């Protein structure tokens, strides 16, 4: 029957239409634009080949943007994972108290980044902020968190770490709980101490989780925008300007569409590499569940 043959296509067509119009086609269009010079208003799009790319990578501002993005990502991902791992090993217990603690550390994850950004701007206020009050309490001098180029990127990383720890901790706890109990009993019988058990046993068993969190951490950090847009606008002196914010500014403030698209294509390549790794892992995780 022909109806049976058409039906599957009808069922997937609305979704496929949305994906084609708003994801697949735009990606192709962005690659096309990256090879053109266009200011958004002019009717002409001049083909310039790879000029946008070569200009981009030789530009001081863009190199700074790349550096900022890499430093931010390295700081955020490594610190989040280390702290979350420690918390997970400690808080991986049952009981009302531990359930409450897990909920509390997770709560920033579901709050809008707008509120998170504003709350931390207030906490990091140089004159009246709670963070500096806390430092002064221990006799330490006030820190100009967001207003000094030497601390601004780190301050944004702190916010991201604070927001991300809960999610990472809960994923680690899920990973810990999937390790079979009897392995530990065997280790206990052998008289292995706790630190050795952790390094020799827990850590290797957690390595898929560790790898998974590293990859999605990197992908997410590369896309950071909201905190920068609200807290620093890329400043002071370009110290917190990162990839997506740069594309946004070049597209919407300077109307250099070709330039912004070329930066987008570079970001696409970087994200694709990590996403392919992520998918390999996701397929494995689902398989195990």
């Amino acid at each position: 029957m022909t109806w049976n043959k058409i039906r599957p296509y009808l069922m997937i067509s609305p979704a496929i239409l949305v994906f084609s119009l708003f994801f697949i086609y735009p990606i192709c269009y962005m690659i096309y634009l990256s090879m053109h010079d266009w200011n958004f208003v002019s009717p002409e799009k001049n083909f310039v080949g790879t000029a946008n790319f070569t200009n981009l990578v030789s530009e001081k501002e863009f190199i700074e943007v790349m550096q900022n993005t890499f430093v931010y990502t390295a700081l955020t991902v490594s610190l989040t994972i280390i702290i979350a791992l420690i918390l997970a090993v400690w808080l991986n217990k049952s009981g009302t108290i531990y359930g409450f603690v897990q909920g509390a550390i997770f709560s920033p994850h579901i709050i809008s980044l707008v509120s998170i950004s504003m709350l931390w701007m207030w906490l990091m206020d140089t004159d009246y902020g709670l963070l500096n009050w806390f430092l002064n309490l221990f006799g330490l001098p006030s820190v100009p968190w967001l207003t000094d180029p030497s601390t601004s990127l780190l301050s944004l990383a702190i916010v991201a770490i604070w927001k991300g720890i809960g999610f990472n901790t809960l994923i680690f706890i899920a990973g810990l709980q999937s390790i079979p109990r009897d392995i530990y009993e065997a280790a206990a019988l052998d008289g292995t101490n706790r630190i050795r058990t952790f390094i020799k046993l827990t850590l290797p068993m957690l390595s898929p989780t560790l790898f998974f969190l590293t990859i999605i951490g990197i992908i997410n950090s590369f896309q950071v925008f909201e905190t920068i847009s609200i807290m620093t606008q890329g400043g002071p002196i370009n110290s917190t300007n990162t990839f997506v914010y740069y594309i946004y500014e070049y597209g919407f403030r300077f109307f250099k569409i070709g330039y912004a698209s070329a930066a987008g294509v570079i970001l696409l390549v970087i994200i694709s590499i990590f996403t392919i790794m992520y998918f390999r892992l996701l397929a494995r995780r689902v398989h195990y569940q």
Partner: protein
Amino acid sequence: MNTTIPYKLLNGIGILIVVSIFAFPFVWMISTSFKSLGETMIFPPAWLPESLHWENFTAAWNSGPFLTYFKNSIFVSISILILQFLTIIPAAYAFARYQFKGNKFFFALTMITLMIPAQLIFLPVYLQFSAWGLLDTLWALILPFASSAFGIFLLRQSFKQVPEELLEAARLDGASEWKIILKIMIPIAKPVLITFGLFSFITHWNDYFWPLVMTTSDVTRTLPLGIAKLREVEGGVAWHILMAGNMILVIPILIVFFFAQRQIIRAFVYTGIK
């Protein structure tokens, strides 16, 4: 082991410190939102306001068309959710249960979409909407998210686990494919649908980036943008008003989180993205 009194005490103090690091900023937000302007400009800070300044909330609410923002936020989040359910359920069913030419190709296309974040394609999508004359409309906020690759991926997994015999029996009884979806598939996949629904709603309720890019006028803007605009008041930042405004955005989510903590954590942890 480890039940000695010093250990318990140390453990308790540790837990208190950890909870404070994550909960105290919110407590500080609440406390600030009830302060007077003067009380936000004392150092060392005042822990609690002398009296509760409820007028901060009305000041924040009246500083812009917040009713419009609020309505837009609700309308956009709910519309996206409904459209997503309408598009992902049949697609996931077709991918899970039918053999058809191009099945692998279209599923690969769906999976490629999953790897493309909004932060990457906003510029070409913006130009597209501009060509269609749909910029600065609610369409531009809803249409790109009318389906979800991630939802299809999740739902396909759970549809696949339904035994084929069950479907065969239903077909023998004369049930149509739509009836099978409604009466068998959806009830079985209900936990996954709820999980996905919570994830989707919270994500789009909180979203700042997409509406920032696609809208320019107050008529189409959503709550997160309205709140972000509170910064731009003349005469410096008024922290008490700002925090009061943010409470409007945060409190609904925290209330939902309080009642559905388990489901929400599952939604975000097992969905794994963001």
